[in-house]
């Protein structure tokens, strides 16, 4: 129990560093006074002549991750101004770790939250439609499938020329289907709309894609991508497993009597999912979120380590570790970024695992 509390505080610490690291490690002063005027160089990029300043307040570590200190190349830790040493170009390791934290947190947390959001929408609605299916006649089902195929084919031959090219046939098909649903007599043989089957096949197909290889494919397609690009790709890779988990959990809740009762007294599907199902998912969801974040961070570090991740000028834990590989003697380049990565992953796993035990 205590271990979990500590782990949560450590993760909060990482988040704080990711948010506020420009105030801790920066080569620009936080406040300076030039010609009787106060400037905040951290916030604006206007070039100011710092040498003219009367006084200035520097950050705790007066180096950015990209500051090149030509006088201090390959400094070991605790020997100079650089607390954790420098790399071959004279860049501060601690500042680099802080910058790497920002990237790790951005990629790990944002990608998982995007994936969870998508997974919640899809997983919840699929489970609800499996428990309380939409009934429609078989002929209507065939027409819906045909119009879907037509839409795919049409957008393919029109080569996605524009928004209108897609919207006009979509609206047309919706109208045709609506009129047919109204015309077809209710006595005709009906069936349940098999959304769940389609969903499961889709998820299985997605899960068959190996994550790292998919990312490598994207690298070769787009040459180089930004942090947000990598975030989107990781979110795209992670949503199927999360949504399948949500679907299973939600189906367990949807067979309970209180859901039947809620439907009997007139609660809508949206209301049932939001008020009765969603709050019960959070406990078990937090486990899978914690593990997904740690795996996303590991994937990002791996990519940076092999030099394919975020752009080369961005410093991340993986790229710091890569520096260490080139210069074995500079142990501090391997140990400190490695520790930062190790502790974050460990804490995330402790949070997840303790939840499982509870």
């Amino acid at each position, binding site marked *: 129990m205590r271990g979990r509390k500590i782990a949560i505080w450590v993760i909060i610490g990482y988040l704080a560093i990711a948010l506020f690291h420009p105030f801790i490690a920066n080569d620009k002063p936080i406040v300076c006074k030039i010609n009787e005027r106060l400037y905040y160089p951290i916030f604006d990029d206007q070039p100011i002549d710092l040498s003219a300043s009367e006084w200035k307040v520097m950050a705790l570590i007066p180096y950015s991750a990209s500051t090149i200190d030509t006088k201090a190349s390959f400094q070991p830790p605790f020997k100079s101004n650089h607390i954790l040493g420098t790399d071959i170009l004279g860049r501060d390791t601690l500042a680099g770790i802080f910058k790497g934290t920002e990237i790790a947190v951005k990629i790990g947390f944002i990608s998982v939250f995007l994936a969870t959001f998508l997974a919640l929408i899809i997983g919840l609605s699929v489970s609800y439609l499996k428990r309380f299916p939409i009934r429609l006649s078989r002929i209507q089902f065939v027409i819906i499938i045909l119009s879907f195929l037509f839409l795919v084919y049409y957008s393919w031959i029109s080569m996605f020329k524009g928004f209108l090219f897609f919207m006009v046939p979509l609206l047309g098909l919706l109208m045709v289907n609506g009129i047919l649903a109204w015309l077809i007599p209710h006595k005709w043989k009906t069936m349940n709309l098999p959304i769940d089957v389609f969903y499961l096949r889709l998820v299985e197909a997605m899960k068959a894609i190996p994550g790292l290889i998919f990312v490598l494919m994207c690298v070769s397609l787009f040459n180089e991508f930004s942090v947000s690009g990598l975030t989107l790709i990781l979110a795209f890779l992670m949503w199927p497993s999360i949504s399948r988990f949500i679907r299973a959990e939600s189906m367990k809740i949807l067979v*309970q*009597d*209180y859901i*039947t*009762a*809620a*439907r*009997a*007294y*007139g*609660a809508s599907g949206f209301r049932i999912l939001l*008020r*009765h199902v969603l*709050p*019960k998912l959070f406990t078990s969801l937090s486990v899978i979120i914690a593990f997904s974040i740690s795996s996303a961070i590991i994937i990002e570090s791996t990519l940076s380590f092999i030099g394919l991740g975020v752009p080369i000028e961005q410093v991340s834990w993986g790229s710091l570790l890569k520096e260490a590989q080139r210069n074995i003697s500079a142990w501090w380049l391997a140990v400190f970024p490695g520790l930062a990565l190790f502790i974050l992953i460990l804490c995330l796993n402790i949070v997840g695992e303790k939840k499982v035990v509870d």
Partner: protein
Amino acid sequence: MQDLEGRKVLEIGSLKIDFKNKKVINNLSFDVVQGETLAIIGKTGSGKTLTVLASLGLAPKKATVSVTKSSYQNNSITHSLFPNDIAIVFQNAGMALNPTIKCGRQVERVILRNTTVNKKSSRVKTMALFDKVKLSDPNRIYNSYPHEVSGGELQRVMIAMALSCEPKLLILDEPTASLDKLIQSQFVKLLQELKLNEGITILIISHDLIMVSEIADRIIHIDRGEKLADQKTMFFFQEPEHPISRKLIDHLRSWHLQRFKSDTLDAIIYELNKGSKSFPNGNKAFDAVDLVLHRKEKLGIVGESGSGKSTLGRCIAGISAFTAGKEWTDIPKSEIAYIFQDAYNAMDPDLTVDDILNEVLRLRNSDKEPLDYLKMVKLDAAIGQRKIQQLSGGQRQRVNLARGLAQQPKVLICDEVTAGLDLQVQYDLIKLMDLALHQFSVIFISHDISLVKFFCHRIAIMKEGNIVEVGKTEEIFTKSRNDYTIDLINSAGNVKYFLNM
């Protein structure tokens, strides 16, 4: 009646149990005499099961137990040396059996482990035991998994297992709690026969006074960890020692001395003509059922489990649909409220009672407050702040009823709303319903005909998906010629000690 002056089998002296400084059992001593049937009765949570378990050294680890004397057949009981001839049948037979092993095998395993019988003759012995507990088709039971046999049969399998090592003392914890009334009465007969033929000493833990009155020789009444009464059954029912016991008995007696309802019936508001429900696999829940409901009428539907009465109720409430038949009614389905059997599962565990009622009221565009409905079912306003798992069984069911009323219905369908509650709480709940639901039409579904006896104007008897008999309650009870109805009425049981008053 057997000789009660025999030697003492089990003796427990001043038992005390604490849970983290909270006293649960306080200075309780009792003994069991050879050959008698002793019943320990009390409300849910009064500590009856704990008393028996602790006296055999089986109390949970959190509890601190102190006892001055605990001996079985004059030997003191230790945890490591548990006497081989005590058998315990726990409350829920379905949970106590392994679902992946056939019933027969499970009994055999117990025999092989505890006796010197060899593997070949163990099957023969199992069959003999199944015969002894009057299982109708021992071969089928032997080869079925626990989920394939009914609750009554499971209970018998458990008894057979308990009898397999020829116990001197048989302990039954709430043996009839999950059984239908009809099966309960068969079970009581079985126990009486076992007692006569085998001479086993039986210790029953129960809250069901009526069942106890039929088989127990002596009754110990426990309330809040204190022993209130220790009397022979006849005296307990006629002149109870303790005021609380007297209150209990008076309560029971006043219930049994009520009058049948004989109001004239109002206009018909619902009519079902040849209603049927069949499942996709071809099984029929009920078939060609005709039913009529009058305004402000209380209609009881009685039958054993699996007779289709619950499904019928759900279909009338519109939760599931009839597959055939015609309904005539001038009330929309939204004004038929269905009250679920299991109040615990029928309410969202994350919401407070106020939230639950508020949600219904808002969806029904009512300007009333949750408090109005809590008052209607005689609950405090403070209950509104609690969640469903913090309430007692009776309170839960009242909240369930309040939610049904909050739906502003004209008809309420109550599906076994008293199941799983203490007898006294059941009676209280039904009396409350009698007052609160005066203005409504009610369909009350139950397996216990004695519950609907004074509550309903008319009773429909259901068997295997058909209604065998419908009629005014008094006529059903006094004039019925249907064998099944008579069986049901007899199963309800009468406290024989009340009859001569």
